[in-house]
């Protein structure tokens, strides 16, 4: 990492060596450290299972988070229960940490829902597909927290590509203007589909925060400890009324953009090899093993837990049936709506005409 991005905060080297940083540190119990490992392994298992299910035609699409587990788990585990996450479609590690059931994450990709869960239940918004939109939502939520005199923080997730989007830049302006309690968590995974991150601007992403009037910090996004430490500081800063922080988690999209994408058309295989050596799970595993915090039997146990989870996902996804066609008229409005009722009735009558013909 040092070769490319000297400014990135790191507490755990790719080899799993604990290193000190002048500004950031973290002290976790052994159980907490094992918990981070478990989260990352299970998230990766969900991710690989979903990718496989897409290949088998059980899911319409999947956007893998492979390689970004530390950035997602580290930041989400830094959050307090009442903080609120605003994720994109790739943040399976975040939704996992917010307690969203794996099958609920898959419902959208199964094509049976456009939402998947109740945001207030998990304090986690829906997967945002329109790039950048949720970042403004996060700022507005944080403004509401501030108006309420509460101490919650909104954490908005987005990618390096989103840094170009108007909504994201407006979100920065609004957050600065209101000193809103929000953390901007940008995963710079180097790619926005086929476009390298430098297409979105010519300075490092975290440096842009300065121009908007709040601090920006770059963290080694494959180092779960550093991500956790940096996010905790940003959350505390927001909680204590000091406004937003932009965190750039420097990481890598190890998979395709989505299962529809073919990255061999635009990036070199060597890049992937380089990043494999920085794998977020391997480095924590090495640290845990070296420190005697976890041993082979623990790692095996987590792997088995992952297999069980994968099995539940396989069975669960196959059992997910499409909703009734007329459900598309539900919840379009919260108040009665004559036009909707009329069209629902038309559809039901039309569908019944086939049953009559058939029976």
């Amino acid at each position: 990492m040092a070769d490319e991005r000297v400014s990135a905060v790191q507490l755990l080297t790719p080899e799993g060596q604990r290193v000190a940083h002048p500004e950031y540190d973290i002290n976790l119990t052994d159980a907490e450290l094992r918990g981070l490992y478990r989260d990352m392994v299970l998230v990766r298992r969900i991710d690989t299972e979903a990718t496989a299910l897409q290949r088998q035609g059980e899911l319409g699409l999947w956007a893998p988070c492979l390689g970004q587990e530390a950035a997602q788990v580290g930041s989400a585990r830094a959050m307090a229960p009442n903080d609120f996450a605003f994720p994109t479609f790739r943040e399976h590690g975040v939704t996992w940490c917010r307690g969203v059931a794996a099958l609920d994450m898959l419902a959208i990709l199964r094509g049976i829902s456009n939402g998947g869960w109740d945001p207030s239940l998990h304090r986690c918004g829906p997967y945002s597909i329109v790039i950048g939109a949720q970042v403004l939502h996060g700022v507005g939520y944080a403004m509401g927290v501030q108006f309420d005199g509460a101490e919650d923080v909104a954490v908005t997730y987005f990618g390096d590509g989103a840094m170009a989007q108007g909504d994201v830049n407006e979100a920065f302006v609004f957050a600065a203007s209101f000193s809103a309690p929000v953390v901007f968590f940008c995963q710079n995974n180097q790619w926005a589909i086929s476009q390298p991150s430098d297409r979105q601007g010519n300075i490092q992403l975290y440096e842009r925060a300065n121009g908007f009037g709040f601090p920006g910090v770059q963290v080694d996004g494959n180092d779960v400890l550093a991500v956790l430490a940096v996010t905790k500081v940003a959350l505390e800063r927001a909680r204590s009324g000091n406004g937003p922080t932009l965190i750039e988690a420097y990481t890598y999209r190890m998979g395709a953009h989505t299962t529809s994408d073919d990255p061999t058309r635009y990036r070199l295989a060597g890049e992937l090899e380089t990043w494999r050596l920085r794998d977020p799970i391997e480095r924590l595993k090495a640290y845990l093993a070296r420190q005697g915090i976890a041993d082979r039997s623990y790692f095996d146990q987590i792997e088995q837990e992952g297999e069980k989870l994968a099995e539940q996902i396989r069975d669960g996804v196959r059992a997910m049936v499409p909703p009734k066609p007329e459900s598309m008229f539900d919840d379009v409005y919260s108040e009665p709506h004559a036009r909707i009722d009329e069209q629902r009735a038309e559809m039901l009558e039309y569908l019944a005409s086939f049953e009559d013909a058939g029976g």
Partner: protein
Amino acid sequence: MTNLTMVKAINAGLRKAMERDPKVLLFGEDIGRLGGVFRVTDGLQKDFGEHRVLDAPLAESGIVGTAVGLAMRGYRPVLEIQFDGFVYPGFDQIVSQVAKFHRRMDGAVAMPITIRIPYGGGIGAVEHHSESPEAYFAHTAGLRVLTPSDPQSAYLTIQQAITCNDPVIYFEPKRRYWDKGEVDESQSALDLGAVADPWRARIVKAGSDVTVACYGPMVRTCLEAAAVATDISLEVVDLQALAPIDYETLVASVQRTSRLVVVHEAALSGGVGAEIAARIGEKCFYELEAPVTRVAGFDVPYPASRIEEHFLPDLNRVLDAAERVMGY
């Protein structure tokens, strides 16, 4: 003649337009090395260079807004919006700037911008990837709206859209992207003139009982309906241009058949079909034997993909409407 998919046909049309005019630029997300997520611009950056096929930063308002300036500087930008549902961040620049500039400047500045948008459903996609927003644009004065229905019409009309000095919103029916058809690549759209006027509707199947007006993805659906309708003779009209609509062709057809069904994927209310129904009501009041009837998507946000088949008009719904208008 070559047998091409619509993707390849548009690619060939873009290539022709770029060869003809060095001021034609392609601009959009992932259109360079990747060739676009649908591969419509495949190989064009390699052949024309990075200064003519540009990967844009991820910002639709930026793409459209800078195209206005490029046009003022004498360029002819051809923009790609990656999916229908992602045009909205650029909507303000399209309706407030692109559409109005020429009028505001008393004709001193042209906006020869083409905005390509893959649209429509039927490909099992996630939310925001299956929308039919054409009515917003057809409603906006200053914009022209075109949509091809097969490889040959795509090959020609994309070239005509680019050479047009007005802004053209060019809707590509993504579920027909992989349909194949014969394309005469020796034809240059410009030499054809009135023979292939993109602003004229095309009677793609002649018939005598009911006129079926449709466009884009629904043309194939309506042709299939016409093929299986044994006791009703359907005349299928591919509108091709949604702004302005060629009422001359449509009215002449309705005068022959006395019945009109309009079919589109977009939601019913305030859709293109509503405008057509009103106009045909005005122009063919004495000839009509039945009310103009619409077959359209419902007035709901595009549903989850596993039930989209119930949202989208299909062959049966077209036939059902044809039977209903015959019942009067």
